[in-house]
């Protein structure tokens, strides 16, 4: 089938450009661009509340920490399908890889705003390697993994562009790329947590642990699975016409399988969190204000959605699964913000604590919006939710 035929088959003529949603997106973009100009002409102090006690703020806590965790759907889905033989998840791989690729790309864009001299970001890789730093490890792995995700995603773009030869070459690398992706994800997901192991005196004892690396890695798994469910439910609502029969046919199985997997991992995560508390003997902190907050995170945003997942899978209750996925996603954001900001410098008096500047919030919304717009642009044009008719036989 020719490309025109594909277009007419899958893309009915678009609606007007001036929809209310597009107007809101336009406003966010305009504000984002304004803050961007301010950031790169006035310095960090112009658009952030960062100070000497809080060198890391919302952009690290949310854009980087939560962003990377929520982009974990890429490695979990591709590993399940290609490495662990769960072929029934095949149609979920492309949306997950796309979400992950956009997520990581925006993490890197966001970092350019956050670091003082962004043009030097390649320095740790090529100029002066600080190999004793866990941040070096994070930087190296994120750079490599972004490359891997780009290659994995490029298969879709190449199909769209009709570059068959190149597409086949990269497609043949699927297995190798998947293995690389899982190794790199294991390393940097865990190292993001390990970044804080150097600061036991600053992070609240309930969140600080020698196991921080393991916590971040394990939680990234159910974060990724939940994000796939969450993204899938939104896509179903807005891009239903772009989905082929295979995708639609496999979707319920994907949701049930991922919800089941997430539930199991979440309870294992609870167990290792309790082990961490027992190990450091920090039980007595549970009675404090921070202890309450810790319990809210653990019970309200891990145990509860884990339980809801289990019940919903048993009852095949897809509405409940969607709710559990949303709570889990929020819980991961909460956890990363707790480690990075809320439980960090917990001993400081309230007036010295950090709260994000409107510029930080604005630019974070800007990044998320870019991600959503890019996602929409790609899924409405490229074979994400359906198989390109020319390549049906090859996988």
């Amino acid at each position, binding site marked *: 089938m020719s490309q025109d035929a594909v277009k007419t088959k899958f893309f009915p003529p678009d609606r007007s450009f001036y929809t209310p949603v597009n107007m809101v997106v336009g406003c966010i973009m305009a504000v984002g661009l304004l803050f961007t100009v301010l950031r790169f002409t006035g310095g960090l102090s112009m658009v952030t509340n960062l100070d000497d006690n809080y060198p890391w703020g919302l952009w690290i806590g949310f854009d980087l920490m939560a962003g990377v965790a929520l982009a974990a759907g890429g490695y979990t889905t591709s590993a399940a399908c290609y490495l662990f033989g769960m072929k029934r998840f095949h149609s979920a791989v492309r949306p997950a890889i796309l979400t992950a690729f956009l997520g990581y790309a925006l993490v890197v864009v966001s970092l350019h705003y956050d*670091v003082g*001299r962004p043009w030097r970001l390649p320095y740790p890789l090529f100029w002066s390697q600080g*190999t004793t730093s866990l941040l070096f490890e994070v930087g190296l792995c994120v750079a490599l993994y972004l490359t891997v995700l780009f290659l994995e995603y490029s298969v879709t773009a190449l199909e769209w562009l009709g570059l068959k030869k190149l597409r086949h070459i990269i497609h043949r690398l699927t297995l190798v790329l998947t293995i*690389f992706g899982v190794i790199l994800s294991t390393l940097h997901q865990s190292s993001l947590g*390990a*970044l804080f192991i*150097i600061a036991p*005196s600053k992070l609240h004892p309930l969140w600080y642990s020698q196991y921080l*690396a393991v916590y971040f890695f394990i939680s990234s798994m159910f974060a990724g699975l939940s994000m796939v469910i969450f993204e899938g439910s939104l896509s179903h609502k807005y891009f239903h016409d772009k989905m082929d029969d295979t995708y639609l046919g496999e979707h319920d199985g994907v949701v049930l399988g991922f919800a089941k997997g997430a539930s199991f991992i979440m309870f294992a995560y609870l167990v290792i969190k309790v082990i961490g508390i027992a190990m450091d003997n920090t039980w007595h902190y549970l009675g404090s204000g921070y202890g309450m907050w810790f319990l809210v995170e653990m019970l309200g945003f891990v145990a509860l959605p884990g339980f809801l997942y289990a019940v919903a899978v048993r009852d095949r209750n897809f509405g409940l699964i969607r709710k559990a996925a949303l709570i889990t996603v929020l819980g991961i954001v909460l956890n990363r913000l707790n480690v990075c900001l809320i439980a960090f410098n917990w001993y400081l008096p309230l007036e010295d604590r950090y709260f994000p500047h409107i510029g930080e919030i604005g630019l974070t919304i800007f990044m998320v919006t870019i991600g959503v717009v890019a996602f929409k642009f790609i899924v409405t044009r490229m074979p994400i939710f359906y198989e390109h008719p020319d390549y049906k036989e090859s996988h």
Partner: protein
Amino acid sequence: MSVSRRKFLAWMGGAGLSTAVGRKAFAASNKHFEGYPDSFGVLHDTTLCVGCRSCEAACNKVNDLPQPEKSFTDLKVLDEKRRTDAAAYTVVNKYESVKKPGLPLFRKIQCNHCLEPACASACFVKAFTKTKEGAVVYDASVCVGCRYCMVACPFNIPAYEYDKVLDPRVVKCTLCHPRLLEGKLPGCVEVCPAEALTFGKREDLLALARERIRKHPDRYVHHIYGEKEMGGTSWLYITGESFEQVGMREDLGITPAPNLTAGALAVVPMVAGLWPLFLTGAYAMSRRKEKIAAEEQAGAVANAIAETNDAAEKKLAQALEKAKKEKEAAIQKEVKKALEEAVKAQEADKEEDA
């Protein structure tokens, strides 16, 4: 490189994966770093500090820092708790005495120049160096501005030039390293009128501090802060009241910062080394499972076909047998009939003949 004594990290090759280049892993050995021999330090005897802020003024001058809004002679500044920032490498804070209520206590804050600095361990471009003179110095020419050093520092010392656009730097006390190389004292030590600061070889300062504590056991707390804290620092402190009382954390422990992350770093090359095995193993197992399942399926199908064939053949054979028998019977019947007819015909012929 003087600081990063243990470099564990796996270097991932261009394609993404390669060998682990582990260097001296002191954390896992019985070796123990006690600082460079004959390195310098400063002993801060807080019982002698009068809170005059001369050290702040001297620091500002020798480092060419911008003039603050309130002059250094304005002692009202001491009423608020301050920390080091981009325009002040050192500050003096005032605290309340518990022993003698109403009397103030003073303590100077600046970089403690750790023997094994957290900032240097955390920096991913090696911008910090622990020099053999004892100073921890910073090289702005490689700094990316990630500010992980500020997260890592247990004493909350490094500050950042947040308002600079093109060349923001991390700033902190240098122990006047350039002046040391010229044979001069650090600015703050040189100017202190109360002899609350003593510059010297760290070993000598430790001996001096012990001597003071021994001579005046009532005046001092029996502890030299910085001897062991975070693995030891080049700045040392003795006080008349608890260190907490003068705003110093007593819960930092004695583990040098690099040792805290040694375990997490050591795992990295293991993951890089073993994950390919586990993952290809998982892949191979799932493939094998599929293959076996396919084979079993094929076998079952073949079996079923064979069984059906057998049954059909048997049935056919039986049918053939039956047919054969029937045919034979029919033939015999026919033969018999023919014979009978022939006999009859013969008999009829005989009758005609007769």
